[in-house]
């Protein structure tokens, strides 16, 4: 099995700090599907573009790093035996039907601190 990152591109993220359960219902449903069938390893929903801060050289600016119609609204990690299967899993994401898109990238390596080891 290999791991792939799936980057979700959309006009904006539905996950505002004051988002209602209805706002993120569709995302949750899809995330549950993927965790239920065992293909999802980790997932991160990002807040909307207005919350982004970018750093270039020594300048800090408001907004996403790349100026484009779509932003990375979130990303998750899936496990699949090969790219065809990974693409098939990614394609099920509802964002594809909502005018957004997805980028699938093989993961080279990863690190997640175990929760018990948080610094004081």
């Amino acid at each position, binding site marked *: 099995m290999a791991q792939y990152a799936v980057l979700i591109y959309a006009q904006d993220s539905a996950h505002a700090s004051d988002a209602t359960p209805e706002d993120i219902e569709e995302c949750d449903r899809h995330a549950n599907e993927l965790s239920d069938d065992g293909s999802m390893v980790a997932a991160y929903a990002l807040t909307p573009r207005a919350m982004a801060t970018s750093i270039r050289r020594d300048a800090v600016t408001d907004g996403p790093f790349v100026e484009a119609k779509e932003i990375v609204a979130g990303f998750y990690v899936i496990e699949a035996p090969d790219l065809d299967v990974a693409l098939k899993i990614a394609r099920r994401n509802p964002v594809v039907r909502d005018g957004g898109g997805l980028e699938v990238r*093989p993961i080279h390596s990863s690190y997640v601190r175990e929760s018990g080891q948080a610094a004081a």
Partner: protein
Amino acid sequence: MTDARADVVAAVGEAHRRAWARVVAATVRITRDFELAEECVQEAYAAALESWGRTGLPDNPGAWLTTAARRRAVDAIRRDAVLRSKLPLLAGMEDAAVWDPASDWDSALGPGPGPGSGSEPAVGADARETMRRRVEALGDAVPDERLRLIFTCCHPALAQEGQVALTLRLVCGVATADIARLLLVSEPTVAARITRAKKKIATARIPYRIPAPADLPERLRAALAVIYLIFTAGHTAPSGSALVRGKLADQALGLARMLRDLMPGEPEVRGLYALVLVTDARRVTRLDAEGRLVQLKDQDRSRWDRAALTEAHEIIVDCLRSAPPGRYVLQAAIASLYAAAPAYDRTDWPQIVTLYDLLLEIWPSPVVALNRAVALSMTAGPQAALAEVERLEHDAQLSAYRYLHAVKADILHQLDRQAEAADAYRRALAAAGNQAEQAFLAAQLRRVDDRSTSR
């Protein structure tokens, strides 16, 4: 060169044309790595040159080469067992019902060499012999793997220029230097495209597998597009001195035929093969003895390849009868209609316009619309065609298309608007691809220039 030596060289050359893809595809099964498979197959062909001279030609050269390449693969994997286990290997082999050297090696030979042992592993002669026999036994029983090879090389996750280079290298067996010459790019560029594609196949785990039925239409489209692209680059060179690059067109014809043999039930596969056959049947008449471009209307129809035209015609009729036609079947049908007329002015223009209409419905390409305009000038007259071309001029996709201005110039010339025709020819000339086309357009321009200034 002695006769015997010449026979061997000819036999190896023939085996290269006929068996290369099959040998590569079967060897990838052992190596699970394109790079190593390619090396082993190359070595097998070099060994054939030497060995066939000594022992005579084998009954089945393809099987001989497959066995030789696979043996080399097994030896290489054994030598590099430790190193290779750390490299990503081609995915999608889990369903393989064939012997897997990685797992089988242990049982056949015991543990391989440890890291840094530096010497040939101590393998008993018996064990080596067992291996050899097992590889040999695979020989002819290996299922045809060429489809896996084609679909992997043409995977839509690869850049198209990578698909083209990889297909020419691995499926057609064209050397990197020759691909560079055929595509008119530098050899390092081709090498880099191939390396990049191989790296993505390994890292992203693009599987070595025939796509599932649900994915087949999309995947087949990608494979057909690669073959068609290779053919069009050969049929009408996008740059350089020659109009036609025959060797590239030959490779495309070979690929189209191979895919037709492997997937005889797919109408679009047959359609592409027919399209290549029909278009290529006119190759020798597209240039005159001095190498000047000859337009379709002035070509010597008696010199067209009738056998190819007949073969294509039968395929097209059959495809049109059995299913709603796809893009390639329709393109082939149009090309075949052009070729079927005893003379240019006796072409069935209304039928051609109808076929273009059908083609536009499933493939709304401005290039198709432009070709339709040419046929329209024959049915509805040049005025109607000009209106259509002027409409197409506003299409951003088409405004840079090198044939738009040439078509417009021809129509203006028919309407006797010579000064405007000259203008259009000048713009066509500026956009022309190869030197043969430039010379042709320059001659057309002189003709209308003479007319527009002589009154």
